[in-house]
């Protein structure tokens, strides 16, 4: 069970059961939809920008525990960050879940709980779906993104 416990840490199970920042965002000025055809995960990310800063960010959709918890923790992490900071965090998060992170995990804060994903390569797309979707929203590409 140890690798499984690394994957399904308490923080992740909690965010899956009680996702933060879940729902529509009325005065959002950016939206993007994400889709993971492998498991049917669907997510919509809403972002409200103030200048270069993410003033608010919320998400909606359905998916597995990893994708839902990842979206939830991501919204908590990104609120108040600049678009550039968000991009840098995504890169570090991606390195973390693909097992390429060699830095001090403490600087990643709560995102570090997703380190166990690297032992389950088929679940990497679940963890990164919300991040890909957010990047699409911030880039205002406007197209529906897919992990496939």
């Amino acid at each position, binding site marked *: 069970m140890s690798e499984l416990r690394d994957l399904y840490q308490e923080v992740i199970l909690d965010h899956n059961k009680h996702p933060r920042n879940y729902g529509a965002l009325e005065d959002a000025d950016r939206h993007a939809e994400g889709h993971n055809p492998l498991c049917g995960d669907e997510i919509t990310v809403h972002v409200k920008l103030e200048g270069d800063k993410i003033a608010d960010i919320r998400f909606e959709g359905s998916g*597995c525990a990893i994708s839902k918890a990842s979206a939830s923790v991501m919204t908590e992490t990104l609120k108040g960050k600049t678009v550039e900071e968000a991009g840098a965090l995504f890169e570090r998060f991606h390195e973390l879940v693909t097992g390429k992170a060699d830095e001090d995990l403490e600087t990643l804060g709560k995102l570090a709980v997703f380190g166990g994903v690297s032992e389950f390569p088929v679940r990497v797309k679940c963890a990164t779906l919300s991040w890909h979707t957010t990047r699409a929203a911030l880039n205002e590409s406007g197209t529906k993104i897919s992990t496939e």
Partner: protein
Amino acid sequence: MSTTSAATRYDVERVRRDFPILDRQVNGKPLVYLDNAASTQKPTAVIEAVRDYYATHNANIHRGVHRLSQEATAAFEAARATMARFVGAEQSEEIIFTRGTTESINLVAFSYGRANVKAGDEIVVTEMEHHSNIIPWQLLCEQVGAVLKPAPIDDTGDLILDELESLLTERTKIVAVGHVSNALGTINPIARIAEMAHAVGAVLVVDGAQATPHATVDVRALGADFYACSGHKMYGPTGIGVLYGRRELLDAMPPYQGGGEMIRTVSFEGSTWAEVPHKFEAGTPNIAGAIGLAAAADYLESLGREAIAAHELDLMAYGTAHLEAIPGVHMIGTAREKTAVLSFVFESAHPHDIGTILDNEGVAVRTGHHCAQPVMKHFGVPATARASLGVYNTHEEIDALVAAMGKVRELFA
């Protein structure tokens, strides 16, 4: 033959010794392979048939006068005869080797469909079809301006026959139905559907991918005009499958792909086609695959197809009872006539999480939409977890699945 006597005679431990892969471990635990609807494991008889072909007979077929080519041709055509017997075809020429069920259905859509379906005509499928029995018809409809109509299913996963019948008119040219649903296990009443289709002058195309591994198939008794199946889902190799077609339909159909093997004469003024089945087999076929598939068919016959069906029905009933007893588990697909599929959802865990946790326990199941998105939509779920049974599965393996679901509950309930 009664279910009990067949199940008693069936020696699953002996069957398991025929499958070398069942000796391996996954995550330090014995492999419990319950993803047979996606692909089955291979018995030694199949592995050896393929090895023997490459080791002692390999050559191109229908061409050379040399010894190896003659042997390869004889083995390939013997495989065709075996598959004709296996599905109950009247003649070997009614068996076309393809890459699998998907290509078989695409062949019918391309060749029979383009020649016989016109603008305003209709093609009827069911809501429970695998995407490979939807998309080829959608493409055909787009090309010729025909209309695709899905017959609905009820909440047990049974086809609503009256609704199907009410969709059939003189405009219906093709009815395309799965023999057994891959997502739900539902067994469709093919013979009755054939009568309905023929009553309006339509042909019946049957996707038999999930039926040939589990039950006796007799295309003539079923009344199927075309019947498609895949090698790898019936313990044979990947990349090989069969299309059965009624001889007079095949004779009248234009070729599917052009190339070597399928011609009689070629000139720049115009070419003529070989007789069936070669007309539909352009290029060098998957010779080893066909020989391996015939070995799989012989293997299933040696186990006894009624005995296999009884064994799997017994396991399915056992699995259904034990899964249903887990609080929070809800079975998807409870048709009166079904086989070999245990599709379910669990209220507090997504199927994808279930799949990862079961894999950690050595239990291989499929999670997702099973290439049947309309079925998922009907039941209002994004995906299901699916345990699908095969000839080598045991009651102990069902127990392992149920125990592994206990781990899911530990984490998620």
